[in-house]
């Protein structure tokens, strides 16, 4: 045991730190800049970085690169299939979309209530979407007018394919309160 001389251990031993990183301890000789950038500092810095790397990896690991969920884009037939002034319920079950046609065109409304994510019902008699969970009500346009819902229903991207069919793309949504309903793809002019 020739290397463990007393002098050295006295000054340097304290620098062996507890599990979490600590800098070099001060035991009277004072902190010099040189010793601050000593091997131990580099070591702990690198160790913390690597550990951070591990946790970053854990984080990233939980977000897969692909999803096996049902496809978010679907073809919804040709515009003639929709009657002006009516709310079409045929895509509600499969894709969670109401397609509404008014005098000027067609838009695709999300069936997710903006309050807490329930699915409202279309009440044809009252001409409104009424959410069964907390009673939010939306007009045919998707604008909220009663109940706790904080903002209008979202609309999805709706465009015409080359063959004249409607394509609804749920990956892209438009919010009225952000003024996005004016976007040409939020509304299909007929």
């Amino acid at each position: 045991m020739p290397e463990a001389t007393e002098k050295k251990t006295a000054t340097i031993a304290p620098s062996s730190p507890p599990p979490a990183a600590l800098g070099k301890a001060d035991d009277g000789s004072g902190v010099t800049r040189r010793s601050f950038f000593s091997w131990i500092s580099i070591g702990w810095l690198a160790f913390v970085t690597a550990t951070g790397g591990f946790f970053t990896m854990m984080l990233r690991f939980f977000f897969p690169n692909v999803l096996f969920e049902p496809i978010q884009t679907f073809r919804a037939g040709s515009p003639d299939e929709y009657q002006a002034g009516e709310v079409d319920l045929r895509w509600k079950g499969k894709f969670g979309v109401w397609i509404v046609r008014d005098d000027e065109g067609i838009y695709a409304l999300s069936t997710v209530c903006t309050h807490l994510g329930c699915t409202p019902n279309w009440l044809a008699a009252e001409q409104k979407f009424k959410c069964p969970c907390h009673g939010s009500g939306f007009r045919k346009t998707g604008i909220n007018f009663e109940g706790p819902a904080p903002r209008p229903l979202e609309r999805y991207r709706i465009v015409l394919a080359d063959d004249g069919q409607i394509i609804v793309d749920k990956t892209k949504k438009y919010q009225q309160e952000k003024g996005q309903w004016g976007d040409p793809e939020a509304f299909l002019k007929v």
Partner: protein
Amino acid sequence: MAEKKNLLQRLAEGQIWTSIFRGGGVPKSRRQRMMVVLNSVFLHLHPVRLPKHAVKLKFTWCMGGLSFFIFLILTISGILLMFYYRPTIEYAYTDIIDLAEQVPFGIMREIHRWGAHAMVITVWLHMFRVFMTGSYKPPREFNWAIGVVLLLLTLLLSFTGYLLPWDQLAIWAIAVGSNMARATPFLGHEGPGAALLAIGDINFVTVASDVRFALIGGRFLGEATLLRFYVLHCIGLPFVIMIFMAVHFWRIRKDGGISTPV
């Protein structure tokens, strides 16, 4: 206390730090160094002081410690893998493909597999070292026996994990392995003596009632086998091995720490 303190030092002497690490501060004196070990739930696995050869790599080869550390790596990577792997004959294989093709850090599978191989080797080498230093001799006989059980459990863990990718390599390795079980004396349906366990026309040990069946959950390797091996691999065996590990470590301390020449 008049000296300037840097941020880390302030932190180390602050209330939060000292509340987490009993005693706080940086151990400076011999006593403090001892207290660090005594006060930590993790570190007090160790004694406070050791014979000097116990810290020499030349003597210990660090194989026991590495085995334990690899076990931890395997536990963590294994838990992470469970998030993407489904133990069904439908998806097991494709999920493994996807680990390589699209899962972020699907490299977890490689870590787990190579770690498993490495653990078998380190456990063997640990046993080898213990034998060569005669460390199984009294009073450590029983702990050696525990060690043999741990070796067996390590092999079983590796063996059960081997099936999970559900590829040719997997099922045929398990097929070869589990078919040996059918030849278990008395308990396997093709084992010597099994035919004697019968009353009249009723055989007690048949293909659907022997140890092999208990192992693979069916007459043939199939969905049930995969599920059984999965449960054993992820819950059953780790649980058992942890108990034995606890005893193993405890006994090291109680049997006088690392073996030393008399």
